[in-house]
């Protein structure tokens, strides 16, 4: 009896081993590290089809901007990393590629197609080799409250210069509302909020040799204008800014398309900045990119699969399918599609802004750069230093930083 039982158990073991051997292979687990918010939402909703097709499971880590940058960097020091795909802000590109954090997508067999807006791809290459793909077309826009603008006697198409913006905000302030709302909570937000104004005055933070240029006449004029403009409103965090403009408590603010989806009935909308300081002044490219790109870490555990995932996520049809969920592809086929524009007319504005946008300086020291500049701007805004002193101090500190 015991022998029979032992024999039966042994046969069962052999059978189960055999079954396991012939069973389907376990799916490969891929890990994605993404920027939290709409940016990750639209990627996550596209993943099931890829998972099914490639027999993989994708785990998504959604992080804040700071945590995302640090998370990718911390993982980069491991011989084999955790992440297969990472979302990268354009301004981190120089730091990452200089230090070999990202895999060469050209070598992995992926190339960008012609449908992608060319200006958005400028930072994606190093020596003609592709490292990143522009996924989410974030670009600065001017968010405004429709009723407040109308009350100031303006139509959106009449806002042709920074002068007009100031006039509208001053009128709103006179009416007991807040004019311009700015993000003063971090140095990064402060600098990025200000860059479109600086560009409209023909200034920039570095010259063509990446030498700091913050103590210039253009910068001082833009700073003086910015002080006048923000005096009409308040410093608020992102959610408060959106709520302010949406409710009409505030009138305008620099925003990003990913923040707000305007409709015909919504109380707020956005336009691209004209790039002119005054009605007669020269027009400059004044839309600043905050494009979220996707790439593959150099130490990704499954680089080939990851490259396929990049290709899949960048597919024109897949990208267009994300539009109803708030996706903003950097593609003509999505942004100029008649059906898309019929339902989301604001994409025309986004497309124009993306065609003429500016990336933040592609320098490895950008984080230290904006921290230093933002700190001095914060001092000027709060009256701790005057414009001349603050910008001279910033210039000196930045020159030391950039060597």
């Amino acid at each position, binding site marked *: 009896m015991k022998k029979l039982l032992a024999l039966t158990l042994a046969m069962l073991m052999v059978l189960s081993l055999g079954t396991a051997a012939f069973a389907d292979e376990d799916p490969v687990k891929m890990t994605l590290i993404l920027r939290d918010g709409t940016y990750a939402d639209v990627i996550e909703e596209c993943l099931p089809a890829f998972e099914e097709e490639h027999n993989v499971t994708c785990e998504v880590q959604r992080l804040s901007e*700071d945590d995302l*940058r*640090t998370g990718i*960097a*911390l993982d*980069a*020091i491991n011989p084999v990393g955790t992440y297969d795909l990472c979302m990268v802000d354009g301004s981190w590109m120089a*730091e*990452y590629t*200089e*230090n*070999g*954090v990202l895999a060469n997508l050209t070598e992995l067999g992926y190339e960008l197609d012609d449908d992608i807006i060319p200006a958005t791809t400028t930072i994606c290459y190093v020596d003609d080799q592709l490292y990143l793909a522009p996924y989410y077309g974030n670009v600065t826009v001017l968010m405004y409250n429709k009723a407040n603008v109308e009350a100031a006697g303006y139509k959106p198409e009449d806002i042709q210069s920074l002068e007009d913006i100031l006039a509208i905000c001053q009128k709103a302030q006179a009416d007991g509302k807040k004019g311009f709302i700015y993000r*003063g*909570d*971090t*140095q990064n937000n402060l600098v990025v909020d200000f860059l479109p104004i600086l560009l409209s005055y023909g200034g920039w933070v570095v010259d063509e040799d990446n030498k700091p240029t913050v103590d210039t006449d253009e910068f001082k004029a833009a700073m003086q204008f910015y002080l006048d403009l923000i005096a009409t409103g*308040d*410093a*608020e*965090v992102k959610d*408060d800014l959106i*709520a*302010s403009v949406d*409710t009409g*408590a505030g009138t305008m603010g620099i925003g990003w398309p990913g923040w707000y989806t305007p409709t015909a009935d919504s109380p707020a909308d956005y336009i691209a900045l004209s790039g002119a300081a005054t009605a007669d002044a020269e027009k400059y490219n004044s839309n600043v990119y905050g494009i979220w790109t996707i790439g593959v870490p150099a130490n990704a555990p499954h680089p080939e699969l990851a490259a396929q995932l990049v290709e899949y996520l960048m597919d024109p049809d897949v990208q267009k399918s994300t539009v109803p969920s708030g996706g903003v592809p950097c593609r003509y086929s999505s942004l100029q599609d008649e059906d898309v524009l019929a339902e989301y007319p604001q994409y025309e504005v986004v497309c124009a802004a993306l065609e003429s946008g500016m990336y933040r300086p592609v320098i490895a020291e950008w*984080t*230290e750069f904006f*921290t230093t500049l933002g*700190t001095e701007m*914060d*001092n000027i*805004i*709060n*009256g*701790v230093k005057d414009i001349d002193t603050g910008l001279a101090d910033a210039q000196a500190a930045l020159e030391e930083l950039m060597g």
Partner: protein
Amino acid sequence: MKKKQLTVAHLQSRRFGVGMLTPTMIVLLVMTAYPLFFTVYYSFTDYNLLKQLRKPANFIALKNYTDLLKNEYFQQAIWNTVKFTVLAVVFEMLIGFGLALLVHSLTRGQKVMRTLLLLPYLLPTVTVALSWRMMLSPNYGIVNQVLQALHLPVYNWFSDIRTAFGMLVLIDVWQSAPFVFLLLYAALQSVPQSQYEAARIDGANAFKTLFYVTIPNIKNSLALCALLRTIDSFRLFDKVNLLTGGGPANSTATITQYLYNFGISSLNFGFGSAGAVIMTVLVLILSSFYIKRAMG
């Protein structure tokens, strides 16, 4: 023979002691000594997390320390931290002690009061920070709405240089005073009732009873509370980072926030390590003062 037996027993006892200590020593070495050693080591280098992928960090002697101590924003961060610590600890001690005396004196409802008063301390700091941010929001915050209804001036609490620092102190006191309350309330339970009765018979009023009976009996607990709160307040980071980011105009930048902005965010861990060492030294100096007083 007896001596030999004693030696064996002694050896066994020592071996047992070492065996019991070893796991703790290993954990301490791995979790405390190792990071501490490397923090001190990195503080003398230009270690940058990403740059060291290309080339190893260089030994730069005291450059990180001299750069830090010369930096006006770091000096301001030290001053802000000291100011915050003093204000927060004083208010937390006063309020916590007051609450402990009040609850201790209650004849009914002590348990309910104890639980209710502890609630802020039980909340995660992120929840506390976000709740206060909502309450003090310039748009939909209840505080400004109440002030407006009372025709009082309203503020943009976290962005106004006049109010941001005070708000951080207020929130920290609100959250941490219950901790002081709990410790001192427990200490009050141990004060012998006979001493209170003797004081009453001698005709001591409440004020004298407090200073000649209660405080001398719980002075070690008071010192411990002050020590723990000082160390904790000195390390303040999460509330500042979530609510003000160190602004406006560096008025709320603490040492940890400064190190985060200029060291950790930039991945300059060598620079950040030097700041951490300076902070540790400052905390040790403050702590040793308390420990000396309490034990002494």
